[in-house]
Protein backbone atom coordinates (compact mmCIF):
# COMPACT_ATOMS: atom_id res chain seq x y z
CA UNK A 1 0.00 0.00 0.00
CA UNK A 2 1.27 3.41 -0.88
CA UNK A 3 1.69 5.97 1.85
CA UNK A 4 0.23 8.68 -0.32
CA UNK A 5 -1.74 8.18 -3.49
CA UNK A 6 -2.98 11.13 -5.49
CA UNK A 7 -5.49 10.31 -8.22
CA UNK A 8 -6.36 12.66 -11.03
CA UNK A 9 -6.01 15.76 -8.86
CA UNK A 10 -7.38 18.96 -10.34
CA UNK A 11 -6.67 22.21 -8.52
CA UNK A 12 -8.10 25.31 -10.09
CA UNK A 13 -7.99 28.99 -9.26
CA UNK A 14 -10.95 31.16 -9.94
CA UNK A 15 -9.40 34.49 -10.87
CA UNK A 16 -10.77 37.69 -12.38
CA UNK A 17 -9.04 36.81 -15.62
CA UNK A 18 -10.65 33.38 -15.76
CA UNK A 19 -10.22 29.86 -14.50
CA UNK A 20 -6.60 28.88 -14.00
CA UNK A 21 -6.01 25.16 -14.09
CA UNK A 22 -2.86 25.11 -11.99
CA UNK A 23 -2.89 21.36 -11.49
CA UNK A 24 -4.82 19.51 -14.13
CA UNK A 25 -5.28 15.82 -13.57
CA UNK A 26 -2.09 14.75 -11.84
CA UNK A 27 -1.70 11.26 -10.37
CA UNK A 28 1.22 9.89 -8.41
CA UNK A 29 2.03 7.83 -5.38
CA UNK A 30 4.68 7.88 -2.71
CA UNK A 31 5.75 4.66 -1.03
CA UNK A 32 6.89 4.28 2.55
CA UNK A 33 10.43 5.59 2.96
CA UNK A 34 10.67 6.78 -0.62
CA UNK A 35 11.71 10.17 -1.93
CA UNK A 36 9.71 11.44 -4.86
CA UNK A 37 11.16 14.39 -6.70
CA UNK A 38 8.84 16.78 -8.48
CA UNK A 39 10.58 18.94 -11.08
CA UNK A 40 9.36 21.69 -13.30
CA UNK A 41 9.73 25.33 -14.18
CA UNK A 42 8.17 28.09 -12.10
CA UNK A 43 4.44 28.11 -12.56
CA UNK A 44 4.11 24.49 -13.59
CA UNK A 45 1.91 23.78 -10.58
CA UNK A 46 4.34 21.94 -8.35
CA UNK A 47 3.85 24.17 -5.33
CA UNK A 48 0.10 24.24 -5.78
CA UNK A 49 0.21 20.46 -5.84
CA UNK A 50 1.90 20.36 -2.44
CA UNK A 51 -0.46 22.94 -0.98
CA UNK A 52 -3.40 20.86 -2.19
CA UNK A 53 -2.05 17.85 -0.32
CA UNK A 54 -1.67 19.96 2.81
CA UNK A 55 -5.12 21.48 2.38
CA UNK A 56 -3.59 24.95 2.46
CA UNK A 57 -4.95 26.43 -0.75
CA UNK A 58 -5.91 30.06 -0.39
CA UNK A 59 -9.65 29.76 -0.40
CA UNK A 60 -12.03 30.67 -1.86
CA UNK A 61 -10.12 31.41 -5.07
CA UNK A 62 -8.15 28.15 -5.05
CA UNK A 63 -10.08 24.90 -4.88
CA UNK A 64 -9.77 21.23 -5.68
CA UNK A 65 -12.09 20.56 -8.58
CA UNK A 66 -11.65 16.82 -8.74
CA UNK A 67 -9.64 13.77 -7.83
CA UNK A 68 -8.68 12.40 -4.47
CA UNK A 69 -5.71 12.38 -2.13
CA UNK A 70 -5.40 9.17 -0.16
CA UNK A 71 -3.00 9.31 2.76
CA UNK A 72 -2.72 6.05 4.68
CA UNK A 73 -6.09 5.20 3.08
CA UNK A 74 -7.90 8.31 4.31
CA UNK A 75 -9.10 10.79 1.76
CA UNK A 76 -7.62 14.06 2.94
CA UNK A 77 -10.04 16.05 0.82
CA UNK A 78 -12.95 14.72 2.82
CA UNK A 79 -11.48 15.53 6.23
CA UNK A 80 -12.88 18.42 8.23
CA UNK A 81 -10.62 21.40 8.85
CA UNK A 82 -10.04 20.36 12.46
CA UNK A 83 -9.11 16.78 11.53
CA UNK A 84 -6.85 18.19 8.86
CA UNK A 85 -5.15 20.32 11.54
CA UNK A 86 -4.23 17.16 13.40
CA UNK A 87 -2.66 15.74 10.23
CA UNK A 88 -0.63 18.83 9.39
CA UNK A 89 2.64 19.09 11.22
CA UNK A 90 1.95 15.74 12.84
CA UNK A 91 1.74 13.12 10.09
CA UNK A 92 2.50 15.28 7.07
CA UNK A 93 4.68 18.31 7.43
CA UNK A 94 6.07 20.83 5.08
CA UNK A 95 9.28 22.81 4.72
CA UNK A 96 9.09 26.04 2.80
CA UNK A 97 11.32 27.73 0.34
CA UNK A 98 12.36 30.80 2.26
CA UNK A 99 13.98 30.05 5.59
CA UNK A 100 14.40 33.80 6.05
CA UNK A 101 10.71 34.51 6.19
CA UNK A 102 9.21 31.20 7.26
CA UNK A 103 10.00 31.77 10.91
CA UNK A 104 8.02 34.17 13.03
CA UNK A 105 10.28 37.14 13.81
CA UNK A 106 8.84 37.82 17.25
CA UNK A 107 8.90 34.30 18.63
CA UNK A 108 12.01 32.51 19.80
CA UNK A 109 13.21 29.59 17.75
CA UNK A 110 12.49 27.24 20.64
CA UNK A 111 8.89 28.34 21.05
CA UNK A 112 8.27 27.69 17.38
CA UNK A 113 9.73 24.20 17.32
CA UNK A 114 7.97 23.25 20.52
CA UNK A 115 4.59 24.27 19.18
CA UNK A 116 3.78 21.13 17.14
CA UNK A 117 4.71 18.96 20.13
CA UNK A 118 2.43 20.91 22.43
CA UNK A 119 -0.43 21.03 19.93
CA UNK A 120 -0.27 17.47 18.59
CA UNK A 121 1.26 15.50 21.42
CA UNK A 122 -0.23 17.46 24.29
CA UNK A 123 3.23 17.78 25.81
CA UNK A 124 4.03 20.13 28.65
CA UNK A 125 6.42 23.00 28.02
CA UNK A 126 9.14 21.18 29.92
CA UNK A 127 8.81 17.90 28.05
CA UNK A 128 8.60 19.72 24.72
CA UNK A 129 11.73 21.67 25.59
CA UNK A 130 13.69 18.46 26.19
CA UNK A 131 12.42 16.89 22.99
CA UNK A 132 13.25 20.02 21.01
CA UNK A 133 16.81 20.11 22.31
CA UNK A 134 17.19 16.53 21.07
CA UNK A 135 15.73 17.44 17.70
CA UNK A 136 18.08 20.40 17.33
CA UNK A 137 21.01 18.11 18.07
CA UNK A 138 19.82 15.83 15.32
CA UNK A 139 19.80 18.67 12.81
CA UNK A 140 23.34 19.53 14.00
CA UNK A 141 22.71 22.80 15.70
CA UNK A 142 25.41 23.52 18.25
CA UNK A 143 24.40 24.66 21.73
CA UNK A 144 20.72 23.84 21.18
CA UNK A 145 19.49 25.05 24.56
CA UNK A 146 21.10 28.42 23.94
CA UNK A 147 19.79 28.65 20.36
CA UNK A 148 16.27 27.95 21.47
CA UNK A 149 16.16 31.24 23.32
CA UNK A 150 17.26 33.20 20.27
CA UNK A 151 15.16 34.93 17.67
CA UNK A 152 15.22 34.00 13.98
CA UNK A 153 17.09 37.15 12.92
CA UNK A 154 20.04 36.02 15.02
CA UNK A 155 20.49 32.87 12.96
CA UNK A 156 22.09 32.46 9.55
CA UNK A 157 20.13 31.17 6.57
CA UNK A 158 21.47 27.65 6.87
CA UNK A 159 20.69 27.55 10.57
CA UNK A 160 17.17 28.76 9.95
CA UNK A 161 16.60 26.05 7.39
CA UNK A 162 17.85 23.52 9.95
CA UNK A 163 15.35 24.97 12.39
CA UNK A 164 12.59 24.62 9.79
CA UNK A 165 13.58 21.00 9.24
CA UNK A 166 13.57 20.40 12.99
CA UNK A 167 10.11 21.95 13.15
CA UNK A 168 8.91 19.73 10.31
CA UNK A 169 10.31 16.53 11.76
CA UNK A 170 9.77 17.04 15.47
CA UNK A 171 6.54 15.03 15.50
CA UNK A 172 8.12 12.29 13.31
CA UNK A 173 5.69 12.66 10.40
CA UNK A 174 5.41 9.83 7.89
CA UNK A 175 5.56 12.30 5.01
CA UNK A 176 7.64 15.42 4.63
CA UNK A 177 6.94 17.80 1.78
CA UNK A 178 9.94 19.97 1.02
CA UNK A 179 9.09 22.81 -1.34
CA UNK A 180 12.38 24.08 -2.77
CA UNK A 181 14.02 23.87 0.65
CA UNK A 182 17.47 24.80 -0.58
CA UNK A 183 16.75 27.28 -3.34
CA UNK A 184 17.42 30.31 -1.17
CA UNK A 185 20.69 28.96 0.24
CA UNK A 186 24.14 29.14 -1.23
CA UNK A 187 25.55 25.92 -2.66
CA UNK A 188 27.78 24.80 0.18
CA UNK A 189 24.99 25.24 2.71
CA UNK A 190 22.62 23.58 0.26
CA UNK A 191 24.88 20.52 0.16
CA UNK A 192 24.94 20.35 3.95
CA UNK A 193 21.18 20.62 4.21
CA UNK A 194 20.60 17.95 1.56
CA UNK A 195 23.00 15.57 3.28
CA UNK A 196 21.25 16.23 6.56
CA UNK A 197 17.83 15.49 5.05
CA UNK A 198 19.06 12.22 3.61
CA UNK A 199 20.56 11.19 6.93
CA UNK A 200 17.42 12.05 8.86
CA UNK A 201 15.33 10.18 6.34
CA UNK A 202 17.37 7.02 6.75
CA UNK A 203 16.99 7.29 10.53
CA UNK A 204 13.28 8.09 10.69
CA UNK A 205 12.08 6.24 7.60
CA UNK A 206 9.86 9.14 6.57
CA UNK A 207 8.90 9.57 2.96
CA UNK A 208 9.77 12.83 1.27
CA UNK A 209 8.23 14.74 -1.59
CA UNK A 210 11.01 16.95 -2.81
CA UNK A 211 9.91 19.82 -4.99
CA UNK A 212 12.53 21.71 -6.95
CA UNK A 213 13.47 23.09 -10.32
CA UNK A 214 17.05 21.96 -9.82
CA UNK A 215 17.78 18.65 -11.49
CA UNK A 216 21.13 18.38 -9.73
CA UNK A 217 19.36 18.33 -6.40
CA UNK A 218 16.88 15.76 -7.69
CA UNK A 219 19.70 13.46 -8.73
CA UNK A 220 21.07 13.63 -5.22
CA UNK A 221 17.81 13.23 -3.33
CA UNK A 222 15.11 11.40 -5.21
CA UNK A 223 14.45 7.79 -6.03
CA UNK A 224 11.61 8.54 -8.39
CA UNK A 225 10.92 11.68 -10.34
CA UNK A 226 7.81 13.28 -11.71
CA UNK A 227 8.39 16.00 -14.29
CA UNK A 228 5.60 18.54 -14.50
CA UNK A 229 4.73 20.94 -17.25
CA UNK A 230 1.81 23.38 -17.30
CA UNK A 231 -0.15 21.63 -14.58
CA UNK A 232 0.36 18.12 -15.92
CA UNK A 233 2.75 15.28 -15.25
CA UNK A 234 4.72 14.70 -18.43
CA UNK A 235 7.13 12.02 -17.27
CA UNK A 236 7.25 9.61 -14.31
CA UNK A 237 10.46 7.61 -14.01
CA UNK A 238 12.96 6.17 -11.63
CA UNK A 239 15.79 8.61 -11.19
CA UNK A 240 18.53 6.50 -12.82
CA UNK A 241 16.76 5.84 -16.12
CA UNK A 242 15.47 9.39 -16.24
CA UNK A 243 18.93 10.89 -16.22
CA UNK A 244 20.33 8.20 -18.48
CA UNK A 245 17.63 8.36 -21.08
CA UNK A 246 15.05 11.09 -20.70
CA UNK A 247 12.00 10.35 -22.80
CA UNK A 248 9.89 13.47 -22.91
CA UNK A 249 11.33 16.26 -25.06
CA UNK A 250 10.77 18.64 -22.15
CA UNK A 251 12.84 16.51 -19.80
CA UNK A 252 15.53 16.28 -22.46
CA UNK A 253 15.51 20.05 -22.71
CA UNK A 254 15.80 20.45 -18.94
CA UNK A 255 18.74 18.07 -18.80
CA UNK A 256 20.50 19.75 -21.68
CA UNK A 257 20.23 23.12 -20.00
CA UNK A 258 22.46 21.99 -17.11
CA UNK A 259 26.00 23.25 -17.64
CA UNK A 260 28.54 20.52 -18.25
CA UNK A 261 31.93 20.72 -16.68
CA UNK A 262 33.60 17.96 -18.62
CA UNK A 263 33.00 19.40 -22.07
CA UNK A 264 33.55 22.80 -23.49
CA UNK A 265 30.27 24.53 -24.13
CA UNK A 266 29.98 27.81 -25.94
CA UNK A 267 26.44 28.46 -25.01
CA UNK A 268 24.14 26.80 -22.59
CA UNK A 269 21.28 25.20 -24.40
CA UNK A 270 17.84 26.43 -23.46
CA UNK A 271 14.29 25.50 -24.19
CA UNK A 272 12.93 28.14 -26.55
CA UNK A 273 9.91 30.11 -25.45
CA UNK A 274 8.28 30.35 -22.05
CA UNK A 275 5.72 28.37 -20.11
CA UNK A 276 2.37 29.22 -21.71
CA UNK A 277 -0.05 31.32 -19.69
CA UNK A 278 -2.32 29.01 -17.74
CA UNK A 279 -5.25 31.05 -18.98
CA UNK A 280 -4.56 30.24 -22.59
CA UNK A 281 -6.34 27.28 -24.01
CA UNK A 282 -3.90 25.07 -25.87
CA UNK A 283 -4.98 22.44 -28.36
CA UNK A 284 -3.02 19.26 -28.39
CA UNK A 285 0.11 18.73 -26.33
CA UNK A 286 0.78 21.68 -24.02
CA UNK A 287 4.46 21.59 -24.89
CA UNK A 288 4.11 21.49 -28.67
CA UNK A 289 4.87 25.15 -29.27
CA UNK A 290 8.29 24.80 -27.62
CA UNK A 291 9.03 21.27 -28.77
CA UNK A 292 11.60 20.55 -31.46
CA UNK A 293 10.01 17.20 -32.24
CA UNK A 294 6.42 18.32 -32.59
CA UNK A 295 4.42 17.00 -35.53
CA UNK A 296 0.85 17.49 -36.67
CA UNK A 297 -0.76 15.18 -34.18
CA UNK A 298 0.90 17.03 -31.29
CA UNK A 299 -0.85 20.23 -32.32
CA UNK A 300 -4.32 18.77 -32.46
CA UNK A 301 -4.53 15.99 -29.92
CA UNK A 302 -3.12 15.85 -26.40
CA UNK A 303 -1.22 12.64 -25.72
CA UNK A 304 -2.25 10.50 -22.75
CA UNK A 305 0.32 9.16 -20.29
CA UNK A 306 1.82 6.13 -22.00
CA UNK A 307 2.88 3.40 -19.62
CA UNK A 308 6.34 2.07 -20.28
CA UNK A 309 7.97 -1.25 -19.61
CA UNK A 310 6.53 -4.02 -17.53
CA UNK A 311 3.15 -3.48 -15.88
CA UNK A 312 3.58 -2.53 -12.25
CA UNK A 313 6.69 -0.65 -13.04
CA UNK A 314 5.84 2.94 -12.43
CA UNK A 315 7.09 4.63 -15.55
CA UNK A 316 5.09 6.73 -17.91
CA UNK A 317 5.48 9.55 -20.37
CA UNK A 318 3.05 11.94 -22.00
CA UNK A 319 4.31 12.19 -25.56
CA UNK A 320 3.15 10.89 -28.92
CA UNK A 321 6.70 9.88 -29.76
CA UNK A 322 6.37 7.11 -27.24
CA UNK A 323 3.11 5.67 -28.37
CA UNK A 324 3.67 1.93 -28.57
CA UNK A 325 6.99 2.36 -26.84
CA UNK A 326 8.50 3.95 -29.93
CA UNK A 327 11.43 6.20 -29.12
CA UNK A 328 12.29 8.12 -32.14
CA UNK A 329 14.07 11.36 -31.64
CA UNK A 330 15.51 11.53 -35.13
CA UNK A 331 12.41 12.29 -37.14
CA UNK A 332 10.61 15.56 -37.30
CA UNK A 333 13.42 17.62 -35.83
CA UNK A 334 12.63 21.22 -36.51
Amino acid at each position, binding site marked *: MSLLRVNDLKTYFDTDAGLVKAVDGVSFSVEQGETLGIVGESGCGKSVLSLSV*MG*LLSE*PSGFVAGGDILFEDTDLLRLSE*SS*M*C*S*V*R*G*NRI*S*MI*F*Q*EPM*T*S*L*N*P*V*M*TVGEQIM*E*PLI*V*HRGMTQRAAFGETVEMLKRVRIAEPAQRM*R*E*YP*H*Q*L*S*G*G*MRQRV*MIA*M*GLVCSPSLLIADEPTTAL*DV*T*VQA*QILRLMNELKSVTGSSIIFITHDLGVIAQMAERVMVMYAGRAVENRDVGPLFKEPLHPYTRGLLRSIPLFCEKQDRLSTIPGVVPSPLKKIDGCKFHSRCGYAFDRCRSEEPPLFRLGAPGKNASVRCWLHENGKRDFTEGRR
Partner: protein
Amino acid sequence: MTENGNNNDSGVTGNLWYEAWLRFRRNRLAMLGFFMIAALLGVAVFAPRLAPYDPFKQLLWTEGIKAKLAAPSPDHWMGTDAYGRDIMSRVIHGSRLSLQIGLLATVVSLLIGVPLGAMAGYFGGWVDDLISWFINVIFAFPFMLFVLAIVAVLNNPSMIVVFTAIGLVSWVSIARVTRAQFMSLREREYVEAAKAIGLPTWTILFKHILPNTLAPVIVQATLGIGSIILTEAGLAFLGFGAQPPAPSWGLMISDGQQYLATGQWWWALFPGMAIMYTVLAFNFLGDGLRDALDVRLKR
Protein backbone atom coordinates in the same frame (compact mmCIF):
# COMPACT_ATOMS: atom_id res chain seq x y z
CA MET B 1 26.29 34.83 4.95
CA THR B 2 28.18 31.77 6.02
CA GLU B 3 26.75 28.77 7.74
CA ASN B 4 28.03 29.77 11.13
CA GLY B 5 27.78 33.45 10.45
CA ASN B 6 25.59 35.59 12.51
CA ASN B 7 23.79 38.61 11.14
CA ASN B 8 22.95 39.83 14.57
CA ASP B 9 24.10 43.41 14.50
CA SER B 10 22.86 44.24 17.94
CA GLY B 11 25.45 42.59 20.10
CA VAL B 12 24.68 39.89 22.58
CA THR B 13 21.10 40.56 23.40
CA GLY B 14 18.26 39.00 21.50
CA ASN B 15 15.44 40.78 23.16
CA LEU B 16 13.50 42.76 20.57
CA TRP B 17 12.01 45.07 23.18
CA TYR B 18 15.43 45.85 24.58
CA GLU B 19 16.70 46.73 21.11
CA ALA B 20 13.70 48.98 20.60
CA TRP B 21 14.46 50.68 23.90
CA LEU B 22 18.03 51.32 22.77
CA ARG B 23 16.75 52.96 19.60
CA PHE B 24 14.15 54.88 21.60
CA ARG B 25 16.80 56.21 23.96
CA ARG B 26 18.72 57.78 21.11
CA ASN B 27 15.69 59.84 20.12
CA ARG B 28 15.70 63.11 22.05
CA LEU B 29 12.12 64.17 21.48
CA ALA B 30 10.94 60.69 22.40
CA MET B 31 12.89 60.80 25.62
CA LEU B 32 11.50 64.25 26.32
CA GLY B 33 7.98 62.89 25.87
CA PHE B 34 8.84 59.93 28.05
CA PHE B 35 10.06 62.13 30.92
CA MET B 36 7.17 64.56 30.51
CA ILE B 37 4.75 61.67 30.94
CA ALA B 38 6.72 60.22 33.81
CA ALA B 39 6.54 63.62 35.52
CA LEU B 40 2.82 63.85 34.82
CA LEU B 41 2.24 60.40 36.27
CA GLY B 42 4.22 61.43 39.33
CA VAL B 43 2.08 64.52 39.71
CA ALA B 44 -1.12 62.48 39.33
CA VAL B 45 -0.04 59.84 41.84
CA PHE B 46 1.20 62.30 44.44
CA ALA B 47 -1.43 64.98 43.75
CA PRO B 48 -2.68 65.24 47.36
CA ARG B 49 0.87 65.82 48.56
CA LEU B 50 1.93 68.19 45.82
CA ALA B 51 -1.15 70.36 45.77
CA PRO B 52 -0.64 73.31 48.12
CA TYR B 53 -4.35 73.62 48.90
CA ASP B 54 -7.47 71.52 48.95
CA PRO B 55 -8.78 71.77 45.35
CA PHE B 56 -12.38 72.07 46.55
CA LYS B 57 -11.87 74.49 49.36
CA GLN B 58 -13.24 77.96 48.68
CA LEU B 59 -10.72 80.24 50.30
CA LEU B 60 -11.87 83.61 51.45
CA TRP B 61 -8.77 85.29 52.63
CA THR B 62 -5.16 84.31 52.47
CA GLU B 63 -3.02 86.35 54.79
CA GLY B 64 -5.21 89.35 54.56
CA ILE B 65 -5.64 89.35 50.78
CA LYS B 66 -8.92 88.69 49.08
CA ALA B 67 -8.66 85.19 47.61
CA LYS B 68 -11.36 85.29 44.92
CA LEU B 69 -10.06 85.70 41.38
CA ALA B 70 -6.66 86.51 42.77
CA ALA B 71 -3.89 86.91 40.22
CA PRO B 72 -0.89 84.57 40.36
CA SER B 73 1.23 85.38 43.39
CA PRO B 74 3.72 83.58 45.64
CA ASP B 75 0.75 82.29 47.67
CA HIS B 76 -1.23 81.12 44.66
CA TRP B 77 1.19 80.41 41.82
CA MET B 78 -1.59 80.09 39.33
CA GLY B 79 -4.05 82.36 41.05
CA THR B 80 -7.52 81.49 42.27
CA ASP B 81 -10.88 81.21 40.59
CA ALA B 82 -14.11 83.07 41.24
CA TYR B 83 -14.95 80.71 44.07
CA GLY B 84 -11.63 81.26 45.74
CA ARG B 85 -10.23 77.84 44.87
CA ASP B 86 -6.50 77.49 44.25
CA ILE B 87 -6.06 76.88 40.50
CA MET B 88 -2.71 75.16 40.83
CA SER B 89 -4.17 72.60 43.21
CA ARG B 90 -7.05 72.04 40.82
CA VAL B 91 -4.73 71.65 37.81
CA ILE B 92 -2.66 69.13 39.77
CA HIS B 93 -5.72 67.12 40.77
CA GLY B 94 -7.10 67.44 37.25
CA SER B 95 -4.18 65.37 35.93
CA ARG B 96 -5.65 62.33 37.67
CA LEU B 97 -8.95 62.63 35.89
CA SER B 98 -7.39 63.28 32.48
CA LEU B 99 -4.95 60.40 32.70
CA GLN B 100 -7.58 58.01 33.98
CA ILE B 101 -9.96 58.85 31.16
CA GLY B 102 -7.12 58.74 28.63
CA LEU B 103 -5.93 55.31 29.69
CA LEU B 104 -9.31 53.72 30.31
CA ALA B 105 -10.78 54.94 27.03
CA THR B 106 -7.70 53.60 25.25
CA VAL B 107 -8.18 50.22 26.91
CA VAL B 108 -11.80 50.19 25.76
CA SER B 109 -10.84 51.10 22.21
CA LEU B 110 -8.10 48.44 22.14
CA LEU B 111 -10.47 45.78 23.44
CA ILE B 112 -12.91 46.54 20.64
CA GLY B 113 -10.58 47.64 17.86
CA VAL B 114 -7.92 44.92 17.97
CA PRO B 115 -10.19 41.84 17.73
CA LEU B 116 -12.46 43.40 15.12
CA GLY B 117 -9.54 44.69 13.05
CA ALA B 118 -7.80 41.34 13.34
CA MET B 119 -10.81 39.41 12.11
CA ALA B 120 -11.48 41.84 9.26
CA GLY B 121 -7.89 41.68 8.08
CA TYR B 122 -7.35 37.97 8.49
CA PHE B 123 -10.59 36.50 7.22
CA GLY B 124 -11.35 39.09 4.53
CA GLY B 125 -14.48 38.47 2.48
CA TRP B 126 -17.83 39.29 4.04
CA VAL B 127 -16.35 39.52 7.54
CA ASP B 128 -14.09 42.31 6.31
CA ASP B 129 -16.92 43.97 4.37
CA LEU B 130 -19.15 44.04 7.43
CA ILE B 131 -16.53 45.32 9.86
CA SER B 132 -15.13 47.85 7.39
CA TRP B 133 -18.61 49.12 6.71
CA PHE B 134 -19.10 49.60 10.43
CA ILE B 135 -15.76 51.39 10.75
CA ASN B 136 -16.63 53.71 7.90
CA VAL B 137 -20.03 54.53 9.38
CA ILE B 138 -18.38 55.63 12.61
CA PHE B 139 -15.67 57.51 10.75
CA ALA B 140 -18.32 59.36 8.77
CA PHE B 141 -19.65 61.05 11.91
CA PRO B 142 -17.76 63.91 13.50
CA PHE B 143 -15.91 62.29 16.36
CA MET B 144 -17.04 64.73 19.05
CA LEU B 145 -20.64 64.67 17.94
CA PHE B 146 -20.76 60.92 18.23
CA VAL B 147 -19.31 60.94 21.74
CA LEU B 148 -21.74 63.70 22.73
CA ALA B 149 -24.63 61.66 21.37
CA ILE B 150 -23.65 58.60 23.38
CA VAL B 151 -23.22 60.61 26.60
CA ALA B 152 -26.51 62.41 25.94
CA VAL B 153 -28.39 59.16 25.33
CA LEU B 154 -27.02 57.61 28.51
CA ASN B 155 -27.84 60.89 30.24
CA ASN B 156 -25.28 60.32 32.96
CA PRO B 157 -21.97 62.13 32.61
CA SER B 158 -20.07 59.97 35.10
CA MET B 159 -16.49 58.99 34.46
CA ILE B 160 -17.39 55.44 33.39
CA VAL B 161 -19.83 56.74 30.79
CA VAL B 162 -17.35 59.29 29.49
CA PHE B 163 -14.49 56.86 28.94
CA THR B 164 -16.76 54.18 27.54
CA ALA B 165 -18.31 56.65 25.13
CA ILE B 166 -14.91 57.85 23.95
CA GLY B 167 -13.70 54.26 23.67
CA LEU B 168 -16.76 53.26 21.66
CA VAL B 169 -15.88 55.85 19.06
CA SER B 170 -12.10 55.88 19.03
CA TRP B 171 -11.64 52.12 18.47
CA VAL B 172 -12.07 52.63 14.74
CA SER B 173 -8.60 54.00 14.14
CA ILE B 174 -7.09 51.13 16.13
CA ALA B 175 -9.19 48.68 14.13
CA ARG B 176 -8.01 50.20 10.86
CA VAL B 177 -4.36 49.88 11.77
CA THR B 178 -4.84 46.33 13.03
CA ARG B 179 -6.79 45.36 9.93
CA ALA B 180 -4.11 46.65 7.60
CA GLN B 181 -1.43 44.80 9.55
CA PHE B 182 -3.30 41.51 9.53
CA MET B 183 -4.02 41.84 5.84
CA SER B 184 -0.37 42.09 4.97
CA LEU B 185 0.82 39.60 7.57
CA ARG B 186 -1.64 36.84 6.72
CA GLU B 187 0.24 36.30 3.45
CA ARG B 188 3.60 35.91 5.20
CA GLU B 189 5.36 32.63 4.91
CA TYR B 190 5.61 32.12 8.64
CA VAL B 191 1.83 32.25 8.82
CA GLU B 192 1.68 29.63 6.10
CA ALA B 193 4.28 27.66 8.05
CA ALA B 194 2.16 27.97 11.19
CA LYS B 195 -0.80 26.58 9.26
CA ALA B 196 1.42 23.80 7.96
CA ILE B 197 2.21 22.63 11.47
CA GLY B 198 -1.50 22.27 12.11
CA LEU B 199 -2.18 25.16 14.46
CA PRO B 200 -5.79 26.18 14.94
CA THR B 201 -6.82 29.50 13.39
CA TRP B 202 -7.20 31.34 16.69
CA THR B 203 -3.72 30.37 17.79
CA ILE B 204 -2.35 31.67 14.51
CA LEU B 205 -4.32 34.89 14.83
CA PHE B 206 -3.45 35.79 18.37
CA LYS B 207 -0.18 34.04 19.05
CA HIS B 208 1.58 34.31 15.71
CA ILE B 209 0.21 37.38 13.97
CA LEU B 210 -0.88 39.66 16.80
CA PRO B 211 2.57 40.09 18.37
CA ASN B 212 3.85 41.17 14.97
CA THR B 213 1.21 43.88 14.76
CA LEU B 214 1.82 45.25 18.25
CA ALA B 215 4.28 47.96 17.28
CA PRO B 216 1.95 50.01 15.06
CA VAL B 217 -0.98 49.34 17.38
CA ILE B 218 0.98 50.63 20.38
CA VAL B 219 1.98 53.70 18.41
CA GLN B 220 -1.61 54.35 17.34
CA ALA B 221 -2.87 53.88 20.89
CA THR B 222 -0.24 56.21 22.35
CA LEU B 223 -0.99 58.92 19.83
CA GLY B 224 -4.67 58.35 20.56
CA ILE B 225 -4.30 59.04 24.28
CA GLY B 226 -3.55 62.69 23.56
CA SER B 227 -6.64 63.17 21.47
CA ILE B 228 -8.76 61.30 23.98
CA ILE B 229 -7.64 63.65 26.74
CA LEU B 230 -8.48 66.54 24.44
CA THR B 231 -11.91 65.03 23.80
CA GLU B 232 -12.54 64.63 27.50
CA ALA B 233 -11.66 68.27 28.05
CA GLY B 234 -13.93 69.22 25.19
CA LEU B 235 -16.79 67.23 26.66
CA ALA B 236 -16.31 68.85 30.04
CA PHE B 237 -16.10 72.26 28.37
CA LEU B 238 -19.46 71.63 26.74
CA GLY B 239 -20.91 70.44 30.02
CA PHE B 240 -21.22 66.78 29.01
CA GLY B 241 -18.20 65.47 30.84
CA ALA B 242 -17.00 65.98 34.36
CA GLN B 243 -19.48 68.01 36.38
CA PRO B 244 -18.70 70.78 38.85
CA PRO B 245 -17.04 70.90 41.24
CA ALA B 246 -14.74 68.17 39.82
CA PRO B 247 -11.25 69.49 39.05
CA SER B 248 -11.37 68.81 35.32
CA TRP B 249 -9.15 70.79 32.96
CA GLY B 250 -11.88 71.12 30.39
CA LEU B 251 -14.38 72.30 32.95
CA MET B 252 -11.92 74.85 34.30
CA ILE B 253 -11.38 76.31 30.84
CA SER B 254 -15.12 76.40 30.33
CA ASP B 255 -15.64 78.26 33.59
CA GLY B 256 -12.65 80.51 33.13
CA GLN B 257 -13.13 81.53 29.52
CA GLN B 258 -15.70 84.19 30.35
CA TYR B 259 -13.09 85.93 32.47
CA LEU B 260 -10.50 86.00 29.71
CA ALA B 261 -11.92 89.18 28.27
CA THR B 262 -11.99 90.92 31.64
CA GLY B 263 -8.32 90.25 32.31
CA GLN B 264 -8.49 87.22 34.62
CA TRP B 265 -6.56 85.10 32.12
CA TRP B 266 -5.11 82.66 34.65
CA TRP B 267 -8.29 80.68 35.29
CA ALA B 268 -8.46 79.32 31.72
CA LEU B 269 -4.81 79.59 30.71
CA PHE B 270 -3.20 77.20 33.18
CA PRO B 271 -5.52 74.24 32.62
CA GLY B 272 -5.13 74.92 28.90
CA MET B 273 -1.37 74.68 29.25
CA ALA B 274 -1.77 71.45 31.19
CA ILE B 275 -3.78 69.97 28.32
CA MET B 276 -1.23 71.15 25.81
CA TYR B 277 1.60 69.68 27.86
CA THR B 278 -0.11 66.30 28.12
CA VAL B 279 -1.14 66.03 24.49
CA LEU B 280 2.30 67.11 23.34
CA ALA B 281 3.99 64.60 25.65
CA PHE B 282 1.92 61.69 24.33
CA ASN B 283 2.56 62.76 20.75
CA PHE B 284 6.32 62.91 21.31
CA LEU B 285 6.18 59.50 22.92
CA GLY B 286 4.05 58.06 20.14
CA ASP B 287 6.31 59.39 17.40
CA GLY B 288 9.36 58.07 19.22
CA LEU B 289 7.78 54.67 19.64
CA ARG B 290 6.94 54.55 15.97
CA ASP B 291 10.57 55.07 15.04
CA ALA B 292 11.90 52.75 17.72
CA LEU B 293 9.53 49.86 17.10
CA ASP B 294 9.90 49.84 13.35
CA VAL B 295 12.32 46.93 13.47
CA ARG B 296 11.90 45.58 9.99
CA LEU B 297 12.26 48.91 8.22
CA LYS B 298 15.47 49.71 10.04
CA ARG B 299 17.29 46.56 9.03
